[in-house]
């Protein structure tokens, strides 16, 4: 007689459960030399959970309606203030959600950069990279639609600008824009469908993609800062004779290590949430505390900081169609990373000097494009060169330079590796920290 809910009881009824747990946790052998850059995957997962849980509570009190409740203020805008003031702990739930949104992108950008540093997109992890890129794409849509929901003035005008990008598509552009908005202008129907997409459609897709991303990773195994495949190294460790010698079980080793990362990360987040949740207008923009108003255009319409590098690419190029195309390409080109980079050596530690320089320049260009898109660059230029500076000319100049570096990175990478110009250092047999 097997006791109900005992281990044997479960094994008999769900025989796949324990093997799945072992495969992904206690018998998932990760290389033992993960460094700082390897915290961001688990942190991204933590934020995803945070966004879902806080989002559930926000949706209990938020009303997706552009109907006016008192002069100039919509029900949606008022319901956000209702959460902030009348709902018990509503401010905490909302600031956790808004801070989570920005932190998500910080973490994801680090996570992606880690991949570029250590060549984690290369064979055999192309699928992991592609699924990750899809996650990034959906995340951008999710964040954009979430930003529209408070129905502040920047929500409204931001939505208008971003949606109008689609009008650059030849022939069907204008019809497509009307179809997306559900109206001839951004309005109530737009808000309602963005709410639906933000809380149901996109999170479902996001979750599915994250599961696939992890499943694909656990099939091929994790890369590491040395870019050496531990699966191809010597076999046999303390836990199993078939397991890689330089691998350690994900649980408890990396669950505990990630716990430390989580602690530090939560300290940073708690500081932001409790001391400066708007982060000086970077996480929640000042203009968005004014309700949506179709008659008052904010002085400079710009998306939240995490879109600003891509927004800078769109805005620097004066032609709308070409700008939209460049924006599309700047994201699309990332999908081709595994095939653009033909180099056999994965980790930046053993790659050619030119590669290191190129990646550094790429990172600088990305940050600087962000500063241009976030309107910081124009203010700095005015400050440095005086108020009579031809700001448009300067912004175009530095904008084009950084766009050239951004795309130049990919061109360089292909030429550099396809024609075998790279002079790499010898890659060690095993991870450098083995005993």
């Amino acid at each position, binding site marked *: 007689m097997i006791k109900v809910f005992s281990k044997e009881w479960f094994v008999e009824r769900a025989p796949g459960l324990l093997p799945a747990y072992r495969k992904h946790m206690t018998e998932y052998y990760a290389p033992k030399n993960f460094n700082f850059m390897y915290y961001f995957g688990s942190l991204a997962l933590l934020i995803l959970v945070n966004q879902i849980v806080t989002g559930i509570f926000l949706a209990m009190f938020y009303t997706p309606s552009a109907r006016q409740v008192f002069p100039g203020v919509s029900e949606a805008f008022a319901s956000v*203030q209702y959460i902030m003031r009348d709902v018990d702990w509503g401010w905490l739930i909302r600031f956790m959600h808004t801070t989570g949104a920005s932190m998500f992108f910080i973490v994801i950008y680090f996570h992606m950069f880690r991949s570029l540093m250590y060549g984690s997109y290369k064979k055999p992890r192309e699928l992991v990279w592609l699924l990750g890129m899809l996650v990034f794409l959906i995340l951008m849509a999710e964040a954009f639609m979430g930003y529209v929901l408070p129905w502040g003035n920047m929500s409204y005008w931001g939505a208008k600008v971003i949606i109008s990008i689609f009008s650059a598509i030849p022939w069907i552009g204008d019809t497509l824009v009307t179809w997306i908005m559900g109206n001839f202008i951004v309005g109530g129907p737009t808000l309602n469908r963005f709410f639906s997409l933000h809380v149901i459609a996109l999170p479902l897709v996001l979750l599915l993609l994250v599961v696939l991303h992890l499943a694909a990773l656990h099939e091929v195994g994790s890369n590491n800062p040395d870019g050496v495949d531990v699966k191809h190294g010597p076999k046999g460790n303390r836990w199993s004779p078939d397991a890689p010698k330089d691998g*350690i079980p994900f649980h408890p080793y990396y669950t*505990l*290590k990630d716990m*430390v990362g989580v602690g530090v990360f*939560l300290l940073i987040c708690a500081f932001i949430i409790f*001391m400066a949740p708007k982060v000086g207008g970077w996480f929640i923009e*000042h203009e968005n505390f*004014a309700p949506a108003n179709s008659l008052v255009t904010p002085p400079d319409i710009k998306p939240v900081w995490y879109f600003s590098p891509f927004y800078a690419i769109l805005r620097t190029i004066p032609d709308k169609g070409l700008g939209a195309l460049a924006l599309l390409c700047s994201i699309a080109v990332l999908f081709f990373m595994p095939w653009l980079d033909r180099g056999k050596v994965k980790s930046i530690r053993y790659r050619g000097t030119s590669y290191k320089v190129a990646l550094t320049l790429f990172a600088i260009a990305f940050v600087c494009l962000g*500063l241009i898109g976030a309107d910081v660059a124009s203010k700095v230029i005015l400050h440095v060169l005086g108020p009579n500076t031809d700001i448009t000319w300067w912004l175009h100049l530095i904008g084009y330079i950084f766009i050239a570096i951004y795309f130049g990175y990919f061109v360089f990478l292909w030429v550099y590796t396809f024609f075998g110009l790279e002079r790499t250092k010898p890659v060690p047999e095993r991870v450098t920290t083995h005993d």
Partner: protein
Amino acid sequence: MTKRIVVPFVLALGLLFGAAGAQAQTLMDSGANVRDQASLQRGAKLFMNYCSGCHSLHFMRYSRIAHDLGLSQKDVMQHLDFTGGKFHDNIVSAMPVDGARQWLGKAPPDLSLVVDEMGADWVYTYLNSFYFDPSTTVGWNNTILKNAAMPNVLWELQGIQVAKMSTPKPGDKPVVEGLELKRPGRMTPAQFHAATRDLTAFLEYVSDPSALPRHSMAPWVLLYLAGFTFLALLLKHEYWKDVH
């Protein structure tokens, strides 16, 4: 390795915030402090006496002010409620919106979120930057919001400022170079600065009342998380002893 990643990141952040600092315009420093309860109480009194006739705080309740500012229901209802609202009502000005549009050309905006939108320094500077200007319909103008529809309602406290105009080059119009107190009010300039600082602090509190619980909770939350992180670190070291 960690150093090579962290250092550029810190440098980039420094650049970012340095750049953000470079944006600072010619606003006065408000010095408003939402944690100074007495200042908030004085600010509330000023707001209710001088502002609530035209400006609403649709997102603020009298009862919330009583709770957060350490006032009794009687205090608030007798000394602060001039709109005829009930204790748990929102603060809605008695001025009809349509009438206001006709009288002033623009309905006075709701001020619930004005500090979050414009910043405390802007509000403080605005309150201090009215000057007498007979060319406008209300007789007042403001250096940081040109041709504001609002008259200087605090003039009896501040007195009357006039603009010092520049001597323009031929063909240019003169611009306001500075303000000068022509006729003193009931308050000295220092007293008026303190009063507008109180008013700004009150409006900052109204913009985000969660600042009060947030700030008082922050040290405990951070301490708790620091303790958690420390324990997690010890546990990690214990388990990782055998990884070489």
